[in-house]
């Protein structure tokens, strides 16, 4: 069984280059919750958390070169914030912090193109953290993996 997560390329690059190739992902049990059986929990994952919709949204934002896309703004803010926190915690150097800032603010929509992560569930099952119900857009299950190794997933772009 697979888990699915959609992230922009820049996230893949930053986690690989600056976080020891360990990846923080938010994932679901279905790529497209609309295809889940009507009486399953997976069918209750709404569009805003549905990997297929996230993929489509990022792809369309990149095709349109939409600088004001909410997802891109949030992820950019997230990395700018984490870069400060990592620097303050001594986990990265000031140079690495500058590189992260450069990457996430570069006028390069190729870096924001979506990448689908395919994560075999069994090896990570014990590390799955359920997303708090208050943070989910719907009732369907969503998970966090905070330290996914590069060998634990494959990436697909289409």
């Amino acid at each position, binding site marked *: 069984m697979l888990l699915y997560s959609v992230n922009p390329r820049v996230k893949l690059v930053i986690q690989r280059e600056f976080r020891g190739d360990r990846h923080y992902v938010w994932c679901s049990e279905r790529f497209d919750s609309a295809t889940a059986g009507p009486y399953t929990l997976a069918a209750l994952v709404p569009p805003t958390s549905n990997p297929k919709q996230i993929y489509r949204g990022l792809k369309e934002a990149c095709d349109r070169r939409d600088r004001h896309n*909410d997802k891109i703004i949030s992820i950019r*803010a997230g990395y*700018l*914030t984490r870069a400060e926190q990592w620097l303050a915690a001594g986990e990265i150097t000031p140079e690495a912090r500058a590189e992260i800032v450069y990457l996430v603010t570069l006028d390069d929509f190729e870096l924001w193109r979506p990448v689908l992560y395919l994560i075999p569930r069994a090896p990570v099952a014990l590390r799955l953290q359920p997303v708090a119900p208050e943070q989910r857009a719907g009732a369907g299950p969503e998970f*966090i993996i905070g330290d996914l190794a590069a060998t634990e997933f494959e990436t697909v772009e289409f």
Partner: protein
Amino acid sequence: MSPESFQQVGEIPTAVLAMLANRLLRDPLSPTPGPRLDHLADSEAAALALLQRTLGISDQDLRAKPEAQIRLLGEISRLLSQLAPDKRQEAASRLGYRGLLRPTDYAVEFVPDWQRFEDLFQERRASIEDVVSTTNFYRHLVPDKRGVPDYPAVTLLGKRISSKRTDPFVMLVVAERLASVLRVHSAWRIPIDFVPPTPDPLNLLERFVDQFGAFIRIPNRPSKQFLYYDEVVLDGSVAAETFPLAVEHTDAPTVGTAVFRVSQNGILEVAMAFAINVNPYKKFLRSLK
């Protein structure tokens, strides 16, 4: 500076901005829905108030409207992403060397003896610059020893060329990555029948060298057509300056491409090296007309 003294958003410390952004971003494990804006530290409260005033965002909108939260996040991002021009350029140089930028983010220059290459094969600088800026596919080749400072690095860039004046081919550019500069060493017209639908530039180049390349003499090792991220111990029989023009068993003219350096302990650190037999390649070029 006391928190209440923030007069302009530019005065807000980055640590405070980061704490505020963190409260606005979704925390998947938090039981609190929406932004977590209760129990702010004095400095956070002062910064938030100033930011809200500047952007014209009310408390009610900030708590209830996602678009207001996104606007505030956008402004905090703008403030957190301020880099002095020299720091920005230094970051670009480091990222460029590591092959993390797209081709158009690099400046393009040519090796000092490029004119010789141009005279021999009639490849113009402007055409090569066009391949770099409008490449169809490229690959930044990353050395295994990525932690070693200044280890030579190569980028390959390809572009399909078709025009009424010539048969179609792929122009493949071999460039050395020097910080945020791509220094072009050579550019080759690859026969179109070598090119699969989704080409990998390294595979293309290897196939091209297999077809048109000469064998390079390597000290203490069998000769080879193609060296790629390799290290050669120099024993004096091959001078680093002539590498890779020391070609086996041929008096025919060749043109070499070599991206390398000699380390302090006398090791030839090679990013890429090959030599092309001029006559067969020129015969192929004539066949394209």
